[in-house]
């Protein structure tokens, strides 16, 4: 529980990180009409996928922020040595990542949707798909960050390692939003979330011991 408190405290004390993720998202989305076309019909077709990809990139960028800081100041090794179950530590880290990097983006999705000429119905389902799908992204990003902690060029390595795993939530999320809520994809996405919640923290925990030994 104190792990969660600490994570929230750190989150509240670094609004700069939240703003960084938000700005990145908005700026990248703004680039696309400039790069492709201002035609709202074309933008509308691309909008769901674009916002999902931008969310994915934001997630990757922020992946190792909190872990790296804990690794460097030595609190990660104390957490490994502590009595709290390591899978819980990893889960809390994922929650922290989601709250800092992804939730702000979800909140600002209506704005992004307007920039890309999205219909409000699609926007609703997009937000739903992001709400269910982004936690999966966080869980994988923390796993990847833990694997690359302390290694040279960890950032590039992170992308190479994580890319295949981010495809299912990406595909399922975009499909759910683009078919305007067809429950099939919704169930699959929710199922993916449940399975990820139950397995990934444990995988991350086993990698944590390796990371701390570096």
């Amino acid at each position, binding site marked *: 529980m*104190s792990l969660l408190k600490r994570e929230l405290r750190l989150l509240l004390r670094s609004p700069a990180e939240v703003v960084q993720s938000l700005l990145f998202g908005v700026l990248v989305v703004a680039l696309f009409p400039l790069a492709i076309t201002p035609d709202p019909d074309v933008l509308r077709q691309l909008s769901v996928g674009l916002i999902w990809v931008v969310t994915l990139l934001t997630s990757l960028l922020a992946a190792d922020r909190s872990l790296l800081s804990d690794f460097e100041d*030595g609190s990660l090794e104390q957490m490994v040595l502590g009595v709290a179950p390591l899978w819980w530590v990893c889960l809390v880290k994922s929650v922290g990542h989601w709250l800092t990097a992804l939730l702000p983006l979800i909140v600002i999705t209506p704005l992004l949707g307007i920039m890309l000429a999205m219909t409000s119905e699609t926007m609703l389902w997009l937000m739903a798909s992001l709400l269910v799908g982004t936690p999966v992204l966080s869980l994988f990003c923390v796993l990847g960050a833990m694997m690359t902690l302390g290694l040279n060029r960890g950032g590039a390595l992170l992308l190479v390692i994580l890319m295949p795993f981010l495809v299912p939530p990406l595909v399922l999320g975009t499909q759910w939003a683009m078919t305007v809520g067809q429950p099939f994809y919704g169930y699959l996405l929710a199922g993916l979330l449940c399975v990820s919640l139950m397995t990934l923290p444990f995988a991350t925990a086993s990698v944590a011991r390796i990371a701390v030994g570096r």
Partner: protein
Amino acid sequence: MFEDLDFEVQSGEVLQIIGDNGVGKSTLFRILAGLLEDYDGKVEIAARSCLFLGHRYGLNPRLTVLENVQFLMALQGEVPSEDTLLTALAKLGLLDETQQRCGELSEGQRKRVALTRFLLSNAELWLLDEAFSALDHHGRQTLLTLCQSHVDRGGGLVFSSHQALDPLMVDKTLRLGPA
């Protein structure tokens, strides 16, 4: 990295590990603490609980002294009252700094914050890598007193230091060096 290491520390005993920089003292400490598993051989810890302090103190720079100590204590499963915490911090000369963020403190102050949980906890075995680094004379005295009372209560202590310390009752010495 090492070969043929064989040593034992009983309760109430103090082991000092000596060696030049780079010979592997910190690696040995990390193995003892359970952070490194890449070795052949056995490490048996009969103590019920163990505290480790390495080169990095485990203090988040954006949290205050009090918050950091609370967190580190919680990691050991202990939740002392705020009064207990403040008393301990006072003994280490940190009463004025409890609400300051650890990022703003000097290294010596941070070392003393990290040592606070040693004062508060009942762990049987202490592992202190570079125990006396970053401490001024007053800090060193405080740490010596801390260690002495720990050993008197029957706890075991393994530490490393560059400085020879006559006042501390060292029972055994382990010297690491080239073969």
